[in-house]
């Protein structure tokens, strides 16, 4: 995709996700003439300055200063408690918004963001980039088309000893981040489950929070298709980091963040096919095709999609309302939570 002209943007928040994900992604997009990075925003000079230098962008302490540059896109990568006000400010200044997950600190705030986008006619995209992973797109197709028969059940285990290089402890303060592992990595999974299977018809939820934020969470859900899902999340100990889908005639393993890989165990075949997902081959002799997007490329794909949506005046692939609904499910889980035993 090549936009008619680079999309001008500002990046709000210079923490770990900006440094590790947005910095390389935006540099790549700029190399291809897709974006023009006007400014980065962060109140902390030690975070702001290096990112501004790396991206060749202005360094702003406040969002207002950056909005004076009239960006077309505002990328919000700050603590969730700040998302709503920052998104509303961006819309008021005429910008579109790509907001990191979770979309807001609460579903109410997320709804307000979506309403503000609709009211101002601006685009709001939710940062659920895992929908862009080829493996997850393939799973959606397999579920919907029942290629291997209907999905019977799925077991998803994800997480490990927490290693995200959080710059401050705001990530673990309930006032700043109102959830633990379910809100952090779980909101991605809940978004995927909704995308694959729709809203659950029934579910139970348990976690190990005492008066703080959970480190382990368990969700058991059933869906309208009859499929049941067991989800286990942890920040505490190593897990297998795999989603297992048991269809009527095959079992499919999808390793967490293995964006372009799937493992197929087909009924009657005494082996497992560990597959790299590639562009489709034609039905004639042809050389091997190109591998589909890796995890970083899936992240880039979301940015490309948002830029294209701005240029083409269309909705993004993951609109804000989807982020709001995933967040609503997270909140509903917390509302009905039972306590996991502490061993």
């Amino acid at each position, binding site marked *: 995709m090549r936009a008619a002209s680079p999309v001008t943007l500002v990046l709000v928040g210079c923490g770990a996700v900006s440094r590790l994900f947005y910095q390389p992604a935006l540099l790549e997009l700029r190399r291809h003439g897709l974006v023009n990075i006007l400014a980065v925003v962060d109140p902390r000079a030690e975070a702001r300055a290096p990112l501004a230098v790396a991206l060749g962008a202005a360094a702003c302490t406040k969002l207002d200063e950056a909005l004076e540059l009239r960006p077309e896109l505002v990328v919000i990568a700050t603590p969730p408690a700040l998302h709503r006000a920052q998104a509303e400010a961006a819309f008021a200044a005429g910008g579109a918004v790509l907001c990191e997950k979770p979309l807001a600190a609460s579903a109410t705030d997320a709804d307000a963001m979506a309403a503000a986008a609709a009211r101002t006619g601006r685009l709001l995209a939710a940062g659920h980039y895992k929908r862009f992973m080829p493996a997850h797109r393939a799973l959606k197709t397999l579920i919907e088309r029942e290629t291997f028969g209907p999905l019977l059940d799925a077991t998803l285990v994800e997480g490990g000893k927490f290693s995200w290089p959080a710059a401050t402890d705001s990530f673990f303060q309930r006032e700043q981040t109102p959830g633990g592992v379910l809100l952090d990595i779980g909101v991605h999974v809940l978004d995927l489950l909704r995308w694959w299977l729709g809203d659950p018809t029934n579910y139970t939820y348990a976690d*190990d929070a005492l008066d703080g934020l959970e480190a382990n969470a368990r969700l058991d859900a059933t869906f309208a298709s009859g499929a049941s899902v067991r989800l286990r999340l942890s920040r505490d100990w190593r897990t297998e980091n795999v989603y297992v889908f048991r269809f009527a005639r095959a079992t499919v393993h999808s390793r967490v963040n293995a964006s372009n890989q799937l493992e197929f165990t087909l009924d009657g075949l005494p082996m497992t096919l560990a597959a790299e997902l590639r562009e489709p081959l034609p039905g004639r002799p042809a050389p091997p095709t190109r591998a589909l997007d890796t995890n970083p490329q899936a992240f880039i794909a979301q940015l490309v999609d948002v830029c294209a949506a701005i240029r083409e005046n269309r909705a993004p692939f993951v609109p804000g309302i989807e982020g709001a609904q995933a967040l609503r499910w997270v909140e509903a889980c917390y509302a009905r939570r039972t306590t996991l035993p502490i061993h």
Partner: protein
Amino acid sequence: MKTASQSSTWAIIGASGFIGLRALEGLHDRDGIAVRPVVRAASSLAVLARRRLDWRIAGPRDLASLTGALRGCSVCIHAALGDPLQIEQMATVAYQACAAAGVRRLVWLSSASVHGQNPAPGTDESSPIHDRHLLAYNNAKVRAEHRLEKLSADGRVEVARLRPGVVFGPRSRWITDTAADLRAGRAGWLDEGRGVCNSIHVDNLVHAIRLAATVPAAAGHAFVVGDAESVIWRDFLLPVATHLGLSANDFAIAAPAALVAERETPFAALTRSRLYQNLGEHVPDRAKRLVKSLASAWPAPALAPGAWRLPRSSSNAPRLTLEHTLLQRCAWKLPHAKAARILGYTPPVPFAEGLAASLAWLDFAEGPR
């Protein structure tokens, strides 16, 4: 000097680790002691944040930040992990920080490995310790104890040292690694596991920590602590296998490691040099971690071509690490008579009960199979 009191705040340095976290749970949740976790990075708070706690972020080798983190605490429990060099440095910094912050008692988590993993029969706390062990970890623990003995001669901080052996329980590598090795078909033992395992369930260790922090006479002493039972490795390893639906047949006769001293990598040797340490004071921790990770990621020399081998070849017996080799050759149950006499230590958790609880945790952690 005042006696450490349970009515004041206890700091736990390394509170996110296996022992530190369990100590926090035991002291805070069960005993109602005001506990202040001290961790080296925000990312270490992930599990601690289940509770609303008054935590601090401070480097265990950063005197200024550690002193600030310890202010207002009467007891400091040091359970932070580190490489050999860090272990030695942490001892000095912990003592100095406790002294500067007005902490009355430092409970230092040393290790039974100061006596070696395979101590001579008759060994107890009265046996001299030396830093000529094959394992650098052992030597670091010995040097750390020596540093603390020397530093505490000034009387500013009471120091009690605990020497636990094989600490097991929920989250312990002795449980998770054993299960992983068994499942991967790479579990092995020496002499069918007849060597002595100087085990201690983590809750027994937490009990010892509690006593070491509060018993006045503990100051200035080192204590070996362990489970009540005499345990051999077979008692420990076989129930893990049985729990997984496996048996003694799933342990291969392992190849022991050669009994030669660990060799430092060139990078580790560099880090011990005076030049590096002087320079290191001016280098941010993040940069140090980056250099270390790059050094460890440096490609190892290529192995011999492996294409012409039978798949799933069983010709290579599992090779035990040097640590495991020494541990499984152990023939002496280290006594905790001194801890019993001075601290009143009686391990509250029977070995079998502790192991069963650990395996129950393994089921819980692994979830559906």
